[in-house]
């Protein structure tokens, strides 16, 4: 493969005219729906504001709560649930990030199948039973995942980076939790987390597929009706800007040094969202054609994968440059990456590059919503982050008039290259050139 393809749920970008319908259920869940024809499929994504940002000191609680959905209900045990979904050909899944705790269903939309798969899905989400034996097993699985992360230089770097950038903020810890915090979590904690956060007012329902609006309303109603009404979760604390540069090295017996360089970023409602989006696209977000890839890979052959990224979340996320290179040239790559960022902020962006970046985003916009799965992700993001419903329709308009000055101002205001967090994971080089 020419370059590494990234699957990042939180990357934003967008499409052409989509007819998004929206309403609230009587219990207070927000619903976004797009009817698509051509394939007899329905996708449902339930996005609860119930992820690791909301779990307090019990790191891993949100993720465990999500992972036990589907293990048992008041009426069925695990094998019965699995068999029920499988015998309908329906796909049930759940995962918990830092903002969103997601439970989803993909099913055929034929009435006889849809009704049954929706019933079992509703039961799993609204009437879970948190059993000790499944919690014990899930904890063991998570401890294995933590060990798996410990043998991956990329994971080690990312964990250290988040810790350094987010400090006291809940984004500082990983959604799966830590060895120390997992042990003490009880089924009572899970029930409590569920009762507080898996409630209608704290839920965004995204629906995409071949069903009518009337049907979609029934579906949303059925799900939300089974939940407590509850309260919307409180907003996260504010992410504090970094006071100082941090240079963190972690020794690891790998052939490559993994480098993460960055800072605190922005949230989705930041006034400079669009200039930063376009700027990052040009700087390091557009694969081999980006400036960063040009300097590190195309001109010097220093790395296979090199890119930059804004994580866009409820609270300010992070800005990150990421690359891996053999130990001996790690310092060189690091210098070039920082220098490239400095140049980008301080010098005029090439006119052609600006135009190319815009043309790529605008001309390829239809690709962003070319599948039901893509549309589902956008509905979830729009609903969860309270973006305007015309977010997709106006996206290209917002991009097209941005000037190089807009981008530079936005970057200069946000990023202080004297206060970068730099994490390197790999073998230490003698004589430690900084």
């Amino acid at each position, binding site marked *: *493969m*020419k*370059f590494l*393809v990234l*699957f990042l749920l939180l990357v934003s970008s967008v499409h*052409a005219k989509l007819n998004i319908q929206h309403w609230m259920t009587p219990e207070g869940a927000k619903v976004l729906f797009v009817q*698509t*024809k*051509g*394939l*007899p*499929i329905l996708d449902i994504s339930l996005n609860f504001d119930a992820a690791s940002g909301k779990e307090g000191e019990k790191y891993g609680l949100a993720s465990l709560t999500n992972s036990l959905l589907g293990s048992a209900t008041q009426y069925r045990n*695990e*094998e019965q649930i*699995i068999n029920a979904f*499988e*015998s309908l*050909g*329906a*796909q049930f899944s759940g995962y918990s990030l830092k903002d969103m705790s997601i439970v989803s269903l*993909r099913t*055929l939309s034929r009435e006889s199948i849809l009704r049954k798969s929706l019933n079992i899905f509703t039961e799993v989400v609204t009437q879970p039973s948190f059993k000790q034996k499944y919690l014990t*097993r899930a904890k*063991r699985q998570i*401890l*294995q995942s933590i*060990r*798996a992360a*410990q*043998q*991956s*230089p990329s994971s080690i770097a990312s964990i250290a980076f988040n810790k350094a950038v987010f400090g006291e903020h809940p984004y500082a810890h990983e959604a799966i939790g830590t060895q120390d915090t997992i042990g003490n979590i009880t089924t009572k904690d899970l029930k409590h987390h569920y009762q507080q956060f898996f409630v209608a007012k704290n839920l965004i329902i995204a629906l995409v597929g071949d069903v009518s609006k009337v049907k979609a309303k029934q579906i949303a109603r059925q799900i939300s009706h089974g939940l407590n009404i509850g309260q919307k979760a409180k907003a996260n604390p504010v992410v504090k800007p970094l006071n100082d540069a941090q240079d963190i090295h972690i020794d690891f*017996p*790998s*052939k*490559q040094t993994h480098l993460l360089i960055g800072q605190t970023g922005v949230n989705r409602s930041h006034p400079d969202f669009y200039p930063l989006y376009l700027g990052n696209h040009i700087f390091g977000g*557009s*694969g*081999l*054609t980006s400036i960063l890839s040009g300097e590190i890979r*195309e001109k010097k*052959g220093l*790395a*296979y*994968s090199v890119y930059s990224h804004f994580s866009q979340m409820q609270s300010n996320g992070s800005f990150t440059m990421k690359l*891996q*290179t053999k130990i001996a040239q790690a310092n060189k790559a690091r210098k070039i990456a920082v220098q490239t960022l400095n140049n980008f902020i301080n010098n005029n962006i090439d006119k052609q590059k600006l135009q*190319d970046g815009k*043309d*790529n985003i605008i*001309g*390829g*916009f*239809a*690709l962003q*919503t*070319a*599948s*039901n*799965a893509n549309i589902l992700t956008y509905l979830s993001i729009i609903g969860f982050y309270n973006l305007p419903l015309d977010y997709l329709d106006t996206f290209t308009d917002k991009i097209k008039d941005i000037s190089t000055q807009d981008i530079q101002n936005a970057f200069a205001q946000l990023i202080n290259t004297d206060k970068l967090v730099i994490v390197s994971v790999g073998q230490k080089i003698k004589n430690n050139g900084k």
Partner: protein
Amino acid sequence: MLKKLILLFFALSQPLFANSLDLAQQGITQITLGNGLKIIVKTDRRAPVFISQLWYQVGASDESRPTTGISHMLEHMMFKGTDNYGAGEFSKIIARNGGNDNAFTSKDYTAYYQKMHKSKLDLAIKMEADRMRHLRLINREFEKERQVVIEERRLRIEDNPNAKVFENLNLISFDKKGAYHAPIIGFQGDLETYRLRDLRDWYKRYYAPNNATLVVVGDVWADEVIALAKKYFGIYKYNPDIAKNNKPAIVHTGKSRVLKLKAELPFYILSFPVPSLKTTKDKHNAYALDMLSYILDNRLSKTLVREQQIASSISVSYSLYDKYNTLFTLSFTPAKGVDNPIVLSAIKTQIAELIKNPAVIKNELARTKTQLEAEFVFEQDRISTQSYYLGMLATVGLGIETMFTYVDKMNAISTHDVAQIAKQYLDFSQANSVELIPQGVK
């Protein structure tokens, strides 16, 4: 190399048109130009976009030392300029026209693609046609890209313990004189030493219309695609010198290897030599093996991971669509504190039970068939998945009809067939294995 996306969608089926092989009914047109270029078009008008892929019938299975990895290296160099465009310009032009592009190399093929708005079809086909014959291989670009690929190898394999296990499994399971022995990305020593001339030879030998298939899926008209293909590819001559490769896999059995690596988690894989759909004498057997892989994956996850909790993960896999004889693999990470022999013995018990009493899988078999039918419909959601299967099946020589008969073939498999095929192929005395014993990362 790498098919991250593709591995998530490894089964196909077709419930809606199960009895029909009429490709036109599926919106598919298939023709071959006079110079041998195959063209497959599938219309899908759900969005005003298309994917255009060009597949070459050459991959790692055609390589041998000292030029392993050369198909993949050439794939990288295909972005480094032609007589008409400078290095990197291909991707830049596609990008400023709203597209994204990439490529992938595997055992039996190398493929390139562009995803774009439907108004850019002409550009995509024109650019792809240009680099079929006008690649300019320059040493300066090659030396940089060699380093990039070596970094890619470090990232994907050298620093990834489980990837090393898979690499070693192929080393012991396939003879070096045949296919599938060497890694797709190549041995480090070969990557460091081959020369521009080797790439040039590879390019000249395999990049010709009669060794390629153009697949376009999306909001396009078949006539329009064919006309553009004729315009841009039609000028190239049929190349009579393409050696019809026949370097089948030569399988070794009863081999094992232990890897002590800087890692935290143990990992164990064992493999059984099996035919693929392409090489089997009786196609029914290949589908039975495919069904066996689903049933076992499911059954072992249930018993060993969820119930007994002696493994933290387990995976069963069979490469139905490989060009040559292949492997049926079982891999697992034991639960903490559990030794591999305990897991292995539990696996054997489950397989023995299935062979002795096929009725135990009756319900699982029915559910699996239902899932495969639904999954086929789900897979139509992505044009890239659709074009992948069309291009891959055409390139390995199975024919794209294979895609539409899959569900019927799988539905015809009985519990007895699954038991029988397990008995025939899962002979533990012949199995190969690679065991990773973690040494910690300190």
